[in-house]
Structure formats: C-alpha cells, structure tokens
C-alpha cells in the first residue's frame, strides 16, 4: 500500500479511535478535557501531537479493567505484565483484536521466508506473557504447523526441532543462544543437522554481534520482532529478511519518535523515545503511549518493497539506562564490546555498586572452554584489553572479572544482565 493511501487509512482510523476512547474510557475523557484536546477537531495526522501522552503508571492506576473500551462480555482474553515492580498492567483482547494480532505476526513470519508450509516452533513462554500466545495465533493464522513448546526443557526442544524438522523458531535471543549451545553440547551441529531457516527473536535486546553468533551457530536468518504487551505484544514491528530495520504495522499503529526530555517529535532519522497509538484495538486502545524504548525512524524505503516505515532496532530504554559517574550507559553498549572478543562466552552480568561516594562497575564474564588460562598473565591481559575497550568506547572504568563457567545464570526468558545495588536492596527486574 503506498504511503499516501496508508496515511488516509490511518487518519480515518485515528479519528474514530479518538472519539471512541473519549466516550468509552473515563481516563481518556478526563485526560483530553484536562489538556483541552477536542477529539472531534482532528483534521490531520499532525493533530495527534496535540493529544496528551499515556504512560505505564496510567495503566496501573486503572488496574484491572479501567482502560477497557468494551464491556467485559466482549473480551476473549487478557494478558498482563509480570508486575514485579508494582501492580500488573492488564491488557484485554476482543475476538477482533486477536485476529488483528494474528494477521500482524503472520505477515512477520512471511517476511522472514515462512509460509503455510512452515513448521513453527514457539519457545516463548506461554501464559500471561504475550510472547508465546502471540506468536501462536500468528502461526495459526498463516496456517503453519505450530509446535507450542513454551520456554524451558531445552533438550526436548532440540529433540523435537530435529524430529519435526522445524524451520522457524520463535523465542528470546538469549534462549536461542542457550538452545544452540545445548545442541552443540549434545554433540549436534545445529547449522547442519537442523532444518531451521529463520529465527524470529524478540522481547529483549540483542546486539548485532550476538545476532551474528546465533545465526552462525543455528544456521539461520535472525529477524528482530518488536512489541510490548501494553500495545499488543510481539508483531507491532518486525524486520524482513533484509534486516535493515523493523517494518511497523502502520495500518494498525502510529509510531512517533519524541525527545524524551521535551517530548516534542524529532525528525526522521533522529533517535528518541518510541511512542505508539493503537489504531485498530477494540478493548485496550492507547493514545500516544510512551514505551521508554529508544529508537529512530530509518529514513528511505526498504529494498524488500514494503512501504511500511521502519524503526531501528531498540538501542536501549530510557529507564534501563545506567548513569555511571554521570555517564549514560546502556547495557547493549557493553554487550557490543564484549561480543567483539572471541575468548569471551556470550553470557555476562553487570553489577553496579557504590564504593564510598563513587559508582563501581564490575563486569562478570565467562571465557570459552578452550581459552588458554594456564598463565595468569593471559587472563590479566584479556581483562585489561576488555577494560581498555570499554573505557575507550564508553568512557567508564569497569572492573572485568572472569568467573567460572555457568556461574552466570542462563535464562529461559528475559536475561538478567544488570544488577544495580546502588539503591539499598534494589535490583532491576
């Protein structure tokens, strides 16, 4: 669909959306009135910038069903965030919402080479988390043979991957890496022994070098899928096989990039916080939802021919950004540095503490099994080279500590990469 036609469709859907949320959700009626925003006055897509933002706390404040725009009778499913840092955020889906979700993910499976003939293994967790069931409905919508594995039980995953000849895998990047390593430990060569052609990975950050390593080990094309439970779940945006940015499902979502401080929109190509408005959701629509994710619009059009604009891969989050001695640091930047060292295994953990008034950062890493550590100076040399690389790339001093194999926790869901002990007793979730 050409961009002009797409924008017409967006405007038409946006107009009815704004009126619908104003009339059906008390929270939005109050918000719009307080901001002097008249939902009936919208004439162009630019007018959306006059509407107030929605933040995660708003969803918590209206727990559990205050943000639903339809009666509970029409709701066929709910998903919710884990709620470890406060009340859970609850999102409801009507039958139509699930259909739209399935359609979004079905497109994503096709864009990485899948079809109704694909064997689609889902190793995202099933449950309140949107990953498993979201991918599931996408696979069924397309007509794939879906293997609903959920996460965990890695040896069985690998067994079925071989026996059922899985061609597309969906899970988190860290779990894909764990599956690859487990298969290799079992004496297999996944790149040769498996029929896998693509992996749709999401729900946590994955550096370009980690992606390359997963691609090499599994012999697949890795595409990055993006979504968040509040907005829908995975499938809001996804890469095509060109891997040059994630095509946003713009017929169902409006993406804006804003400066996280001024909250003003930034031009295409500039980095900022990603903001979404859901155009098609019946049950839990959102107006200008601040995701806290940092990205940008990739300028130009994609070689694949799709007209939907691309957002870049998430470079960090406004809230998992670490401020270390005044320097802004994203865990993804640290990951980028260490994956450049072939001696280092792809598992790491960053521990931030206070030493007196100063922030102190320790980076725990594991070395690969054949690293020659017999001479202390080789270990020290590696530590020093990594520390120097971090210093020159990030301007922070990091104590690099090599730990024993498997002492850094492997994850079957989202990896716990950062432990911030500066706030008494607190740690990131």
């Amino acid at each position, binding site marked *: 669909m050409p961009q002009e036609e797409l924008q017409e469709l967006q405007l038409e859907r946006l107009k009815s959306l704004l009126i619908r949320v104003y009339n059906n959700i008390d929270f939005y009626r109050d918000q719009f009135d307080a901001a002097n925003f008249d939902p009936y006055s919208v004439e162009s897509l630019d007018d959306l910038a006059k509407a107030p933002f929605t933040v995660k706390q708003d969803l918590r404040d209206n727990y559990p069903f205050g943000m639903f725009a339809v009666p509970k009778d029409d709701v066929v499913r709910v998903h919710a965030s884990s709620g470890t840092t406060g009340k859970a955020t609850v999102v409801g889906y009507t039958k139509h919402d699930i259909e739209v979700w399935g359609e979004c993910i079905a497109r994503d499976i096709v864009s990485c080479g899948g079809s109704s003939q694909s064997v689609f293994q889902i190793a995202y967790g099933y449950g309140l988390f949107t990953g498993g069931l979201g991918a599931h409905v996408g696979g069924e919508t397309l007509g794939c043979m879906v293997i609903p594995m959920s996460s965990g039980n890695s040896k069985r995953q690998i067994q079925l991957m071989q026996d059922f000849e899985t061609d597309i895998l969906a899970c988190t990047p860290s779990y894909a890496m764990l599956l690859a390593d487990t298969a290799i430990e079992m004496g297999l060569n996944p790149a040769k022994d498996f029929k896998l052609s693509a992996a749709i990975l999401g729900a946590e950050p994955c550096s370009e070098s980690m992606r390359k390593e997963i691609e090499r080990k599994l012999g697949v094309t890795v595409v990055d899928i993006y979504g968040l439970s509040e907005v829908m779940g995975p499938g809001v945006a996804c890469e095509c096989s060109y891997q040059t940015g994630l095509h946003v499902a713009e017929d169902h979502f409006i993406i804006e990039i804003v400066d996280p401080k001024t909250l003003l929109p930034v031009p295409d190509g500039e980095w900022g916080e990603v903001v979404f408005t859901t155009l098609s959701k019946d049950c839990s629509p959102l107006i200008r939802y601040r995701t806290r994710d940092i990205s940008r619009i990739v300028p130009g059009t994609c070689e694949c021919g799709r007209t939907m604009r691309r957002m870049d891969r998430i470079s960090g989050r406004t809230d998992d950004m670490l401020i270390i001695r005044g320097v802004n640091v994203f865990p993804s930047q640290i990951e980028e540095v260490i994956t450049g060292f072939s001696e280092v295994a792809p598992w790491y953990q960053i521990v931030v503490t206070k030493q007196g008034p100063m922030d102190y950062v320790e980076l725990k890493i594991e*070395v690969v*099994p*054949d*690293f*020659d*550590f*017999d*001479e*202390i100076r080789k*270990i*020290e040399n590696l530590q020093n080279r990594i520390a120097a690389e971090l210093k020159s790339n990030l301007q922070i001093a990091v104590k690099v*500590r*090599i*730990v*024993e*194999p*498997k*002492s850094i926790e492997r994850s079957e869901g989202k990896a716990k990469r950062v432990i911030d002990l500066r706030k008494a007793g607190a740690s990131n979730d």
Partner: protein
Amino acid sequence: MIDQMTVFLENEKGRLGSLCRTLGDAGVNMHALMIADTTDFGVVRIICDAPTKATRLLRDLGYQASTTKVAAIEAPNRPGGMADVLTCLADADANIEYAYCFGSPSHDTAIVILKIHDGDNLVDALAAQGLKALQPEDIYSPDEL
C-alpha cells in the same frame, strides 16, 4: 613433556576442597598441586596420573579445566640440585613461565616442573647434561596411556 591439568577457580570457600574430593572420588591420584593466586581467582596446576580423564571429568562438571604441556625434570635431592637445572636452562637461553617442585626427603631425587616455551628442544639440551625428563609412562596410570 607431560600433561599438567590446569583448573580455574574463583576464590570461594570450599572450592579447592570440593575439586580435590571430586578428583579423589574419581580415583585420580595427584602427585603435585600448586596454586597461582590473585585477588579474585586462583589457577590450580595439578600433576596427576590421569590428566586427560580428569580434565574431561571436570569439564563435564562445569569446571574451567584444560591440559598444558610442561617439562618434568628429575633433579638431585641435594643443595644446588635445582640451581643446576636452572643453570642448564639459562645456558640454553630458555624462557621460563613458571616453575614448581615436588619431592620427598626420603627420595634421592625431586621433580622440577617447568613451563617453558619451546620445551621440546630444551628437554634434549637437558638430557645432554645428564638430566632426565620424565615421560608420560613414568607417572600416568596404565589406563591413561
């Protein structure tokens, strides 16, 4: 040249003890053990009768373990015995990474373990001076050979 097993251990209470217990339970007999320690970790170097088997076992159990070739030289158990070995190596222009010894007061000889670059040639130089280098069959158990 013989195989020395090297194990990376974090400085944690009981870690060395459980390593030794594991080896003992597997029937591995150690002849010598030496730790190079730093603030955060230790590198444990072990001469034993089954280095390959022991390394495989430890790796399976999640240890960072590997084998390294070292020279094991017999030195006379008398004042100046070790010095003679080292003089010989210095004359041969050897570069020693590290060394440690083991022996017993009741024996006529002690064993000097040396990590040296280009060790094979140096062992020949030592032999020319009448110093004997231990071979795998001198210390490995029959299964290991």
